[in-house]
């Protein structure tokens, strides 16, 4: 019989210690974590710190191009990166359902290790709870992270007339991929999540001296939610050309079949950037160097045509407001 996680693995005794050492320490290996103190003692080079947390409850736990573990690292790394902060340290809490397969947990832990290597971030503190069957659905993970701010002043309040909008990748891949994987839908597709850590391209933008006004990863609510929040916060109009928004054919297909908009689908490795028009080409040149942002595109501009609105232009000359997503679109996508 395959090895399972038991309630005793969360009991705080010998079995817990074994699980921590044989699984978590083995893969998350670093000096601070291995000291096994009650809290990690950290030294930060900067006094400008970004601090964030996120919980991951995605269903299913494994999907094409990733799993809950990769998501838990990339998600928090990206939240820090979007503040211009270099991700430094993470904490990680596992809430595991009794009977969860050990091999699956190890696969998830290994993908977390691999994802951390991409940004150089480290898990320096953690916690493991095992709850009786039905207490959680398989596995939930929480990660919190701190980073050192390398570029100050990024804010949703910064959008001004004359700025342009860039997306770093095709939009909607993660949401469509999760939807297609759900057992009740049974769509066969090669569609992969876009799940990726974005610190490297963000760092490259900062190092190239690109002036960034606003930056956000388009997670829940997708591109539509980011653009609407920006338009609202900065009291401007964002006008985008539908034909320029990169959307994979398969995502379009899923949307047509099920009646969704790709702009409302979640992404887990796609960011939206607002910057002055004069900076656009430099930013695109930088982004095209990284595999996770090679499909970047300039999709629109900031105007004053309406206040707090996003306007979508069709290629045949009609236009409509891109309204913020509403209601229950997809539960538990991240």
């Amino acid at each position: 019989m395959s090895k399972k996680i038991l309630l005793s693995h969360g009991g705080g005794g010998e079995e817990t210690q074994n699980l921590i050492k044989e699984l978590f320490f083995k893969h998350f290996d670093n000096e601070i974590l291995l000291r096994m103190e009650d809290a990690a003692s950290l030294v930060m080079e900067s006094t400008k710190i970004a601090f964030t947390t996120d919980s991951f409850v995605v269903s299913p736990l494994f999907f094409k191009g990733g799993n809950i573990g990769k998501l838990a690292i990339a998600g928090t790394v990206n939240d820090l990166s979007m503040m211009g902060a270099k991700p430094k340290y993470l904490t990680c809490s596992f809430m595991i359902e009794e009977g969860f397969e050990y091999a699956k947990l190890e696969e998830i832990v290994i993908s977390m290790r691999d994802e951390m290597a991409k940004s150089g971030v480290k898990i320096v503190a953690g916690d493991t709870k095992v709850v009786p069957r039905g207490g959680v659905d398989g596995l939930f993970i929480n990660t919190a992270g701190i980073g050192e701010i390398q570029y100050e002043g990024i804010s949703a309040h910064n959008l001004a007339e004359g700025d342009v909008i860039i997306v770093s990748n095709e939009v909607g891949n993660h949401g469509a991929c999760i939807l297609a994987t759900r057992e009740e839908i049974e769509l066969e597709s090669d569609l992969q999540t876009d799940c990726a850590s974005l610190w490297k391209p963000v760092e490259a933008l900062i190092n190239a001296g690109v002036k960034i006004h606003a930056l956000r990863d388009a997670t829940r609510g997708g591109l539509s939610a980011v653009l609407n929040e920006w338009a609202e916060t900065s009291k401007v109009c964002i006008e985008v050309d539908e034909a320029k928004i990169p959307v994979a054919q398969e995502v379009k297909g899923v949307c047509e079949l099920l009646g969704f908009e790709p702009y409302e689908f979640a992404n887990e490795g796609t960011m939206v950037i607002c910057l002055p028009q004069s900076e656009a080409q430099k930013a695109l040149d930088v982004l095209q160097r990284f595999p996770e942002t090679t499909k970047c595109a300039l999709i629109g501009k900031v105007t004053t045509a309406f206040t707090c609105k996003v306007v979508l232009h069709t290629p045949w000359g009609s236009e409509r407001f891109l309204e913020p997503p509403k209601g229950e679109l997809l539960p538990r996508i991240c």
Partner: protein
Amino acid sequence: MSEVDLIEGFRDPEHMKALAALIKKECKSKINIMEVCGGHTHTIMKFGLSQILPEFIEFVHGPGCPVCIMPKERIDHAIALASMPNTILATLGDMIRVPGSKTSLQKLRAEGKDIRSLYSPLDVIKIAQENPDKNVVFFAIGFETTTPMSAVLMQHTIENKLTNVFFHINHVTVPEAVEAIMGDGNALIDAFLGPSHVSVITGYKIYEPIAEKYHTPIVVAGFEPTDVMESVLRIVRQVNEGKSVVDNEYARAVSREGNLKAQALVNTYFEKRTHFRWRGIGDIPNSALKLRAEYAAFDAEIVFDDVLPKTELNDHKLCICGDILKGRAKPFDCKVFGKACTPTNPMGSCMVSSEGACSAYFKYGKLNLKGARA
């Protein structure tokens, strides 16, 4: 999916512009076109087609959204059925959100009742097999498009010898609804866009009596933007030539006879109801289906008759969904549109489903307001 292009070709900008130019050139008088189906309302609004068509072309949004036309008392039926002990209620999509007289299925689900939102009716078989000690009630909705799926579910229920599956049938039919709208003589409708998916099942022959009786061109149209534009052009040409016939633009999927196998299956299990009340329109004779008498043991309306409320319920008096469904008003004419009535908190049926006219206007239509752009 990526091997066959079923999307881009039907949204080609040059093709769209060329069709718009032809319609503009050839259309010489006002034509009120009713799109019967909510899917077409959605296409027209989402792709901003009115903006590139001449002012002569006016779309009237018809009654073709199955969620929207469901009277409140039948939503209360779903709520009463879901509230029974040991019961799982299964239904499709937006039905979950529709408010009845006191609550919605969504709220009931949050209170702990077992309500399942399905993508395929056949999932009911699995649910029933996994829950042999519970009654599974399938609340069936939809036009001719979804009726065959309910018939297949009935067939599988019998084949699997399941005795815990029950059907609450709310399937409605297009021709009688169109007849009801045209029949009172007040409708200002010159032509119809015929439904896409309904016609795949029924064939386009079902519209021939309507075109003949009311002298209205009917073009069965696909759901893509170029489908609708091409169909409008064909209507314009019929009007110019003084013709009123049924034409089939959606020939890649629709034939005159339709899907005969599906039609036969539907006839095996279902028969016409003499009366069915449509929300906002009222009673339309022979406009809906019910299970045949020999399947009464599966009919939730018979088996659970004692729990089903009988009072007919009308909408709030400020709600003008009835006039919208008949093409006599536009969503923007409604006093509560976008204020007291929104997709998150719908007062009337047309705001509930994403295919409803009000919901489409709310989501896509605000830029169509005259003078909206500064």
